[in-house]
């Protein structure tokens, strides 16, 4: 079986890459995540997650146009691979499965 293991943060990054569609590169991903989880994300954490998932084959990347804002450096755009999609689906299925298995009474008790 192929390894579809996804960490929590990895899952968020991967989903964000999908959300941003064609415009997913370092800074835009960071902004998007920060606006959603309301917490600072370090460049280090993000880049290391991206590279890790690229190595695992969940993501692929290509270089984009040059911009002045980046000191003449190209952006690297990330897109999800089929493999990555499977990983996301698996993570989601697992969750849904767990959600559906929770007896209603559990939530009644806590509320």
């Amino acid at each position, binding site marked *: 079986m192929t390894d579809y293991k996804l960490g929590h943060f990895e899952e968020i990054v991967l989903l964000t890459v999908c959300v941003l569609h064609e415009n997913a590169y370092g800074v835009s991903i960071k902004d998007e995540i920060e606006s959603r989880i309301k917490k600072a994300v370090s*460049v280090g954490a993000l880049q*290391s997650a991206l590279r890790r998932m690229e190595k695992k084959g969940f993501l692929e990347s290509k270089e984009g146009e040059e*911009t002045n*804002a980046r000191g003449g*450096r*190209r952006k690297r755009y990330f897109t999800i691979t089929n493999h990555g999609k499977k990983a996301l689906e698996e993570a989601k299925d697992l969750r849904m499965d767990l959600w559906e298995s929770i007896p209603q009474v559990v939530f009644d008790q806590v509320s």
Partner: protein
Amino acid sequence: MKKIGEWILSFFCNKDYYNDIRGDLEELHTRRIKETSRIYADFKYLIAVVMLFRLSLIKPFKFHFFLNSSMINQYLKASARNFSRHKANALINIFGLSVAVAAAILLYGYVRFELSYDKGYDNKERIYRVNNHSNFRGRVRTGITGSGLLAPTLEGELPEVELAGRRHHFSRPVIQFKEKKFKQSLAYYADPNLTKILEYSYLMGDSESALDAPNSVVLTKTTALKIFENESDAIGKQLLVNQVAMQVTGVIEDIPANNHFTPSMLVSMSTMSDISWDRVGTITYVLLKNGIATTHIADKMSEMVERLELGDPDNGFSIWFDLYPITEIHLSKDKNQHGKGNINMLYALSMVAVFILLIACINYMNLATARSSLRAKEIGVRKVAGAIRKQISFQFLFESLFISTLSVAFGTVIALAFQNGFVQLTGVPATINFFDKEIFILLIGLAVAVGIISGSYPSVILSSFKPVLILKGTYPTMGSQSLRRVLVAFQFTISIILIVSTFIVYQQIDFLLNKDLGFNKEAVYTVALGDPDTNGVLKQKYLQHPNIKGVTSTNLMPATGDSGATFTIQSEEGETFQDNVSMATVDNDYFSLMDLELVQGEFLDTSSTGLNFIIVNETLVNKYGWEEPIGKFISIPSGDEEGSMERFVIQGVVKDFNMLSLYQDVQPFAFFKKPKFNWGRQYLFLKLDGRNLLETITYIQEQFELFDQKSIFTGSFLDAHLESVYRKELKTARIFLVFAVLTITIACLGLFGLATFSLERRIKEISIRKVLGANIGNIVKLATTEFVIIILISGLIAAPVVFYLMEKWLDGFSYHIDVTLMTLISGVLVALTIAMLTVSIQTIRTARTNPARTLKYE
């Protein structure tokens, strides 16, 4: 700042990712500059770079091909051969480094122990001690002691307080169990909450109830074993504590030495019958609930004071409280906290540790570069055989790492051997557990750090040799001669700073001990009375002895820092004012026995009206500019009933004397005769004539025990007592002395190595000079001039540093010596002499060799 970040990034970041990570950072940076400031953006950039240091993003390690085991074997062999060929050199390096490492380890243990005070509680972040502040008509008092009712009130009134516990000093207990009778220090009243807050663990007895009932005692294990065979025997036994029957209800584990409060026994708080808001002396601790800010609590406590009307604003009396974290008590600079530690001393000792290590590292550096020509051929051959520069420099780094590892190993052994001595020296039970993981990591780190610091420069120098030149036979000058001189100068600067500091500390202590205190301290024997009622009869008995020339009673023991009491005084001469005056109660014989010099008026007389007369000192008179002090009135609260004052007439003025402590200036002082003010401990001061000392003191003790069966005899000579007050300074002085000796020894060791080597190389020159008629003196001069100049320069650099540091230390004393040029010069001279001895011995030996022997091979 951004440049630094860029440089770090390019250094460690994986090449494949570098460009787009750099791009991301760049984009964020430009955006941040627009939004905030450039400095902030730069700062964030740097932070981001540091955060990028992750395994998945850094460059893959490239283990260079030179790192294979057979080569390392070869390096080891080369190093070992080199050591055995130049044993003295290797010994200097290893010995110097080992001693330095041992010193550093011991100092580390000391500093770590001092920093560990009160850090052992599980709830250490939530435990606080309460500061009591009061203001009575402008007289502000701040202290840790307060009312015994505070703790229960805090716990009852403030929901933020989880527990509030208290302790109260238990005065001079004498414990009696069957035939055993002894004095016990460090006894306290305490309530069960205190043992809970401070997390005492009970070995025997019930932690909840042991301190509930009146007259219950909880002993520490050590105290229990002083009385009983083993601690389980103690439970339920009756002890006589100061003649009161008390029951042992518990035994607790000994309190760790790194707690600011180390009781030896606890008596239940309920034994104290007179707890009220007026009676102070109790120390309160609180355990706050999770997540409570102290500022919040301070406000709440102020509200509480108002609500319960604890102050008396109409009468000009207010009180307030705040909290002091328990973890900060020991090293607190706030005198009110009575912290026994001294943070400046810790800084000083940490610096000393680092400097000693540096001095030893410099020895290695200097010797390795100076002697590099001896290795030149080896390097040349290696290079010709294909070694690249990296390999050569690695070889020498490896060699220094090898030496530093050996030294750390030896150093640890030395530290272990001298650990007990060091504990005695510092008086701090800072033993190091060498099996501790932290220590182990530290030692490895030390070995690597020392190896790299001392080995990096030589390895760069040695690996830079050009093989063609070497093998042709021309040895280039290795390493910079001037750098070597600078390093030696650095070593001696540090040594001189330490030597001169040691001189000054000793001079200051000598000054304190020999200063004319304004009273006679010779041949005065002091006896602390246990029962004040024995005062009169003992005095009579003592006066009967032929070798006792005088006896007087007083409640003031000089230099205890505590003068009995301070009081608010009002003059009834037109104006009124309030002041703190230290006071003591004495009898008529006091002034003649203590040789106090009368300036005006007369001493107290024996008439009954004399009770309301007082004698004051010059400082008090000068403070108010009284021309005619005799007959002036001073009123002090009589203590009989609210607001009543009692009037005293000044009958005499004595010359200033220094009975408190030489840390502070002479304070306004008054002597009373009235027995009512005779509180605190009573002492008899006996003037001995110095003959039959042993027999006299035995007599003093026998008589004491005859009339006071309850107490235990405590007697000492006044001058011995005064000396013991400066024990802390003596300790500082001894520590300085030891490390000054160590530094100069290690520095001279390096000097010895350098001198030996340069003499070896110049042996032919010296021989030729001798043949041409030079005498030993000329040659010694030739070899030593350079070092003399270096040490003199070191002295010049050291002087302002010492001056600055020691002036600061001396400022802590009201009475102190000045740092004189003489002291500085003598320090330099000591360093110079030691260094010259080191170098000259070797020089003279070389100079005396027969020139024929060294020149015959030419």
